[in-house]
């Protein structure tokens, strides 16, 4: 989601403007995917920003330079004011992306969103198999609806990205997943290896694929790229490598507070949608302007630049490429948000990744045995 191709050289020094605003309109969602990136305690946050407050957020972000806008959640279609928000966003000059499960979409709503100026719809698919999809999403009827809506989105003339979160229960079926996306007419497919935050962290042992599974999936993806190119079919396949199987950490969000800003349903402003899990306070649009938050808040300045870095990052020649990796992952695995991301083979805590892979190879749960993301489980897990 932070794909910025820079064809120009140089760039201003210091803090650049935010280019991406992710508006998490709500944590409410009809699905219960056990790898949801929402925080475990999402049920606590019921006080959502209202329409006017979201419009104010969008105006502020646009004035600062943000140009890509994602409406996300939870399921953003739950918000009845989505069309009004899209309308205002488009008028402000944002490129507007709707990131949805497709549940709650109707042809009437697709048309209304088109009229409001929505630029793009991304639909998530859980699997190419109806039964696996139903088990993952906790809904037997969502799958058929998604496929129908994906077809409707294409016939309404939108560009369409399909997003499939890959884990051990669907990755071996990647050939059928890509074939399905091709058949649905996708312009691009994000084969997004599950990232282990929020509910996915909780279910990690039952989700992590093995290295052999990942290698096979990559090989199948490469074959598909060749086949698509030979047919002249323009469908981009983006394979996001699972960082537990990588040697170096990802350059998470392009760097902390570098280009990306998330506003959570209650108005909390975060450098990424998982940062709420970190043990530090984050400011809210209810108390401060986005400009103050982006440029001057302790939270947004905490991990900018490289002065905060410990060794081995501090002396590493790659520190400006990966920014020391992901702060949330560092915290979730080591208990220290300022540690080197343990994914890095140079990290003194890299054994945590090795242990996680060992632990998951001994886990034989089916999808149904994972902890579903829903409000009741959220309240049970996060009492007090």
């Amino acid at each position: 989601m932070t794909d910025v191709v820079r064809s120009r050289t140089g760039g201003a020094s210091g803090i650049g403007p935010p280019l991406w605003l992710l508006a998490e309109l709500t944590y409410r969602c009809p699905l219960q995917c056990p790898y949801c990136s929402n925080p475990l305690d999402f049920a606590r946050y019921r006080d959502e920003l209202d329409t006017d407050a979201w419009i104010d957020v969008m105006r502020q972000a646009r004035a600062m330079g943000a140009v890509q806008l994602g409406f996300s959640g939870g399921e953003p279609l739950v918000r009845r004011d989505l069309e009004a928000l899209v309308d205002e966003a488009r008028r402000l000059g944002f490129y507007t992306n709707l990131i949805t499960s497709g549940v709650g979409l109707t042809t009437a709503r697709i048309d209304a969103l088109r009229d409001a100026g929505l630029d793009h719809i991304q639909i998530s698919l859980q699997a190419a198999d109806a039964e696996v999809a139903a088990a993952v999403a906790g809904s037997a009827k969502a799958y058929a609806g998604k496929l129908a809506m994906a077809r409707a989105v294409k016939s309404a003339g939108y560009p369409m990205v399909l997003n499939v979160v890959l884990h051990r229960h669907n990755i071996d079926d990647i050939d059928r997943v890509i074939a399905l996306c091709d058949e649905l007419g996708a312009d691009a497919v994000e084969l997004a290896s599950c990232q282990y935050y929020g509910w996915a962290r909780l279910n990690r042992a039952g989700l992590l694929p093995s290295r052999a599974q990942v290698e096979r999936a990559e090989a199948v993806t490469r074959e598909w790229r060749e086949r698509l190119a030979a047919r002249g079919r323009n469908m981009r396949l983006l394979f996001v490598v699972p960082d537990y199987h990588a040697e170096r950490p990802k350059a998470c969000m392009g760097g902390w507070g570098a280009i990306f800003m998330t506003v959570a349903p209650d108005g909390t402003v975060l450098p990424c949608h998982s940062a709420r899990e970190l043990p530090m306070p984050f400011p809210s649009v209810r108390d401060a302007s986005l400009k103050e938050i982006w440029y001057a808040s302790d939270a947004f300045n905490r991990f900018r630049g490289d002065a905060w870095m410990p060794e081995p990052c501090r002396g590493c020649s790659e520190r400006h490429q990966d920014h020391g990796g992901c702060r949330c992952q560092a915290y979730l695995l080591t208990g220290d948000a300022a540690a080197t991301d343990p994914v890095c083979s140079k990290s003194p805590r890299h054994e945590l990744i090795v242990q996680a892979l060992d632990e998951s190879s001994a886990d034989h749960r089916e999808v149904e045995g994972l902890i579903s993301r829903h409000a009741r489980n959220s309240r049970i897990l996060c009492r007090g």
Partner: protein
Amino acid sequence: MNALAVPSLRPGWRLQWEEAQGCHVLLYPEGMVQLNDSAGAILSLVDGERDVAALIDELTRRYPDASSDELAQDVIEFFVDALQQGWIHHD
């Protein structure tokens, strides 16, 4: 890509000037290309109606100080690259 090809942006993609970035950007689903001055100047003229030769003529009028041979060469190279990158398509 020949001189008679009519380039246009891919459907759903949008070119716009971004003051905060001081450049033209090409916006597409969940992504953005920051364009240099010449790429911005060329793509701004792409309207899905004019062919490459007409676009070169227009740019030559707008930038009379540039060597017209070099300009034509640059424009063609840009379109070949843009096509390869998937930024544009042509009829």
